[in-house]
C-alpha cells in the first residue's frame, strides 16, 4: 500500500478499557497500521508506560492537536460532545503527521478481521462512511428502534470514518472541524447530534465519497435485525459469506444488551456480545490501579 496508514480512536480515561480492547483486536488483524489514541484526559506517563499499553503506537493529548483557544473551548461540552468534537482537529493533526489514509473507530468497537480493503478503498475515494442500516425496516418495532433513531441522530454512524489525503477530504475536514468547533452538541431538537448528524450532508456537499455497504462493517444492535452472524471455518461471518470486520458494542453496560437480545437472530450474535464483556473485564485488570481521570471536569 502506498503511504502510511493510521487508525485512531478518541475517548477519556473512563473508556480506556474499551480503547485497549479495540487497539488489541485491531492489531491482531492489522499489524502494519499504526494505532493512535486521542485522549481527552490526563496522559499519565506511568499508566501509559505499562506493557499492556504497547498496542497504542501513539497517545496524544487533545491539548496538543492544535485546537484554538483550547482551555476555554473544552468547558462547553459534556464528555460525549468533547470526545467527538476533537475528531475533526484530530484528523487534521494526524494528516500533519505524514499519514496518508486515516480511519477513525469509536472506542467501543472491536475488530474481527483486517481493515485492508477499507484502506484500499481510500486509494480511490476521499471519504468513507457506514450507514446505521443498509435496508429499510421490516416491522414497526424495527422502524421505531432503528430507522427512526437514525433519522434523529444521523443516517451514517460516525463510529467509523475513513479519510484519505485529498482535496475533497480537505474540503470536508475544513467544514466538519469548523462545525464541530462551534456546534458539536447533543441537541436533536435543533437537528444537531454531536459530530454525527452533520455527515448526513456529505452526499450533498462533497464528491468522491463512498458509502461502505459491506455488512460485516459496523455491525451493531441497530442493524442486527438485517444481519445474521454465524461461524464458517472458525471465523465469524455475516449473512453467510461476509467476514465480520468490526462490531460496534454501543451502550454495552446500558440498553445495548436488551437491543441485542431483541434483534440478534443467532446465538453467535449473542456470543460476540458476551465475548466483549469478558475482554473489557480482562482489560481492566491490565492497569493495576485506576488512572486519575477528569482533567476536563467532565
Amino acid at each position: 500500500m502506498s503511504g502510511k496508514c493510521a487508525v485512531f480512536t478518541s475517548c477519556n480515561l473512563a473508556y480506556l478499557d474499551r480503547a485497549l480492547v479495540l487497539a488489541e483486536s485491531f492489531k491482531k488483524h492489522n499489524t502494519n497500521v499504526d494505532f493512535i489514541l486521542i485522549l481527552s484526559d490526563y496522559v499519565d506517563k506511568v499508566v501509559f508506560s505499562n506493557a499492556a499499553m504497547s498496542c497504542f503506537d501513539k497517545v496524544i493529548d487533545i491539548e496538543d492537536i492544535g485546537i484554538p483557544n483550547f482551555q476555554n473551548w473544552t468547558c462547553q461540552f459534556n464528555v460525549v460532545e468533547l470526545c467527538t468534537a476533537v475528531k475533526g482537529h484530530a484528523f487534521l493533526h494526524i494528516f500533519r503527521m505524514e499519514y496518508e489514509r486515516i480511519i477513525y473507530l469509536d472506542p467501543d468497537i472491536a475488530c474481527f478481521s483486517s481493515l485492508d480493503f477499507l484502506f484500499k478503498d481510500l486509494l480511490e475515494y476521499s471519504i468513507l462512511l457506514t450507514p446505521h442500516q443498509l435496508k429499510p425496516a421490516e416491522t414497526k418495532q424495527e422502524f421505531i428502534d432503528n430507522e427512526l433513531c437514525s433519522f434523529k441522530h444521523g443516517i451514517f454512524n460516525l463510529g467509523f470514518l475513513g479519510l484519505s489525503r485529498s482535496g475533497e477530504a480537505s474540503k470536508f475536514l475544513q467544514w466538519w472541524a469548523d462545525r464541530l468547533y462551534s456546534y458539536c452538541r447533543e441537541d436533536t431538537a435543533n437537528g444537531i447530534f454531536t459530530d454525527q448528524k452533520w455527515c448526513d450532508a456529505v452526499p450533498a456537499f462533497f464528491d468522491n465519497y463512498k458509502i461502505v455497504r459491506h455488512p460485516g462493517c459496523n455491525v451493531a444492535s441497530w442493524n442486527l435485525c438485517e444481519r445474521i452472524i454465524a461461524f464458517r471455518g472458525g471465523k465469524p461471518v455475516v449473512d453467510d459469506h461476509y467476514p465480520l470486520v468490526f462490531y460496534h458494542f454501543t451502550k454495552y453496560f446500558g440498553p445495548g444488551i436488551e437491543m441485542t437480545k431483541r434483534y440478534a437472530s443467532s446465538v453467535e450474535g449473542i456470543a460476540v456480545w458476551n465475548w466483549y464483556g469478558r475482554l473489557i473485564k480482562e482489560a481492566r485488570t491490565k492497569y493495576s490501579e485506576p488512572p486519575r481521570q477528569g482533567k476536563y471536569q467532565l
Partner: protein
Amino acid sequence: MLDNATSDSLSAQSTFNPEKSLWIDLEFLNQQVKTQPAISDNFINKDPLEWTKAEQIRIAELYINAASDPKALLLNRWFDAKSYMIRRPDVAQSDINPSLHYFSCGYKEEATTTNVEPNPSNKVLRKRAVIDTSKQPFSPSAIYKDWTHGTRKSPILSSAAKLAELISLQISATSDIVISLSHDNAYVNTGGIQKIIREETESCSKNGIAYILISPTNPIPFPLESLSDTDTNGATALVSMNGQALGTIMQSAINILTRNLDTKERKTYLILHHFFGFGLKSISTCISHYSRIQRAFWWIHDYSTSCISYTLLFNRTLSCGSPPPDSNQCDLCEYGIHRNNYLMSLAEITRIKGIQFVYPSRAALEWSRHGHRAIPEYATEKVLPHGRLDIVSIKEKTVKLPDNKIKIGYIGAPERHKGWDEFCALANDHRLTENFDFIQIGTSPATQHIKFALGDGRTKASSVETVLRENHVDYAFIWPLWPETFCFVAYEAAAASCHILTNSDSGNIARDIPREITTIFDDIDSVLWFFLGQKQRGYARITYADGATFIGSNYSFSLVCGQGEDEK
C-alpha cells in the same frame, strides 16, 4: 381491520371448526390442489408422514401464498386459534378462519396471540442459554467450587508405596494388572463410562487380571490445569482394586504407586478412560515412568482430546466442530481461552509409545478426525463398539388418539447438552397435553410438571429397559446437542421396543441405531410438527424392534486380546 374483499375471500377458502386448533388446514389444501391442476393430488391423499421433502415444500408454498407473507409459515405452527379469537371478538363472530386472518393481516395489525411466542424453538432456547452464560461467566474455578460446594473432600491419605505393598500382598507376583484412570469412582456413580468400567472390572477379575482404578477424589469436568486461580497442589486420588476402595493418595504420587507395582514377571495394561479431575502432569509423569506397559489404550468417550468443552459445545450451546484453537471462533468461546495450553499439555500424553486410541463407534472416530485435536496424525486408532443390538424383527403398531395417549420418554440426567430443554419445551406445549404423555426416567425428578420414573440402572428392576417397558414408552426422545460417541440409552431404548426420536447431529445415535426404528429430525420444530401431525390424523403408526437385545462387549478383555478394527 380486514377489508371486505379479503374477508370474503378468506371465508370462502375454508370453514373453521373452533373445537379443533388449526395446524394445517387440510381441507383448504385440498381445495388448492383441486384448483391447481399442476399439482398432483396424490400427495394430499397420502399420510402426511409419508410426504416427501418436495411435497412438504409444496404444501409450505401453498400456505405461504394463502397467508401472503413468508413469516406466516413459521408462525403458523405456534398459532393458537382459540386465544386469538378471545382477543379478536370481531374475528370470532365472523366465519373467517382465524389462522388465515392472522397470517394475512392480523399480525400486521399487531394483534397478539398468547401462544405466538415460539417456546419450543431451539433458537430461542439457545439464545437464552448464551445470555445466561454472560450473567454467570463460565470459569472452571467457579464450577469447581460449585461441584465441591466450596470445600474439597480431604480424606486420610495413604502412602503410595504402602498402598502398592498392600496390592502386592493381595495378588501374586505374576498376576497381570490393568491400571485404569477415570474421572470419578465408577463403583458408586452411574453413567456410561462408569458402566463400562464396572464391566471391565468384572471381566478382568474373571480372567485373573487385577483391575486397579485410579480416580480423582474431587471429580470435576475439567483437568486441574484449567483451574488457574484455585490451589490444585493438594489434589488427591482414590485407588480401588477389583471394585474395592483401598485408599487415597496424592495425585503427584500416582507414579510411585505404579512404579512399585511394576515387576518383571507381570504384564501391565494401561487404560485411560478420562483425565478430568486429574492434573495432566501427574498422568504424564505416571506414564513416562512406566517402562513395561504391555499395552496402552485411550478410550475416546467424548471430545476432551480436542477441548475442555468435552461435548464440543461452543459456549455450552452450539456444536462447534472443533476449529483451530487460534480461530476467532475459539476466541469468542468461553472455553477457547484455555484451549491452546490445554492441547499442548495433552500432546505430552498422546505421545506415549504404542498407545492406541479406541473409539466406541465409527461416528466418534469421524467426528474426532473432523476437527482440530491433540491426537497426532500418526496415532493408531481403532473402533470397538461397547455393544450391539440383536434384533429379531421390526414390527409396527398403531396408537389411536384420543382414546390412547402416546408416551414419550427422556432417559438420563436432565442436562442441557442431552436435550432436556427441548424435551421440557415439548412437554409444556399445551397442544400436546391432551394426547401425549411425557415421562422422565432417571435418578431423581427434575421438575414436578413432568412425570418421573426411577431408572438408575442399579438393579434389574430399575434398568432403563425394564422401566421403559413398564411405562409403555412409545418414543424415546434422545436429543443430544453434541455428537454422541456411544449412547447406551439409545440401545437400551431400542431393546425396550421404543422408537427413537433424535436429531441429525446426534453422532452415534443417528448413524448406528437401525433406521427402521429411528426418526431423525433436522430441528426441534420438526418434532413438534411430527406430533401435531399425529394429533391431526388421530393416530400414530410406530415401528419398533421386537425381541431385541442389547449385547455388551467385554471391553478390557477385547482390548487385551487385540480385538477391534484398526484404522491405521
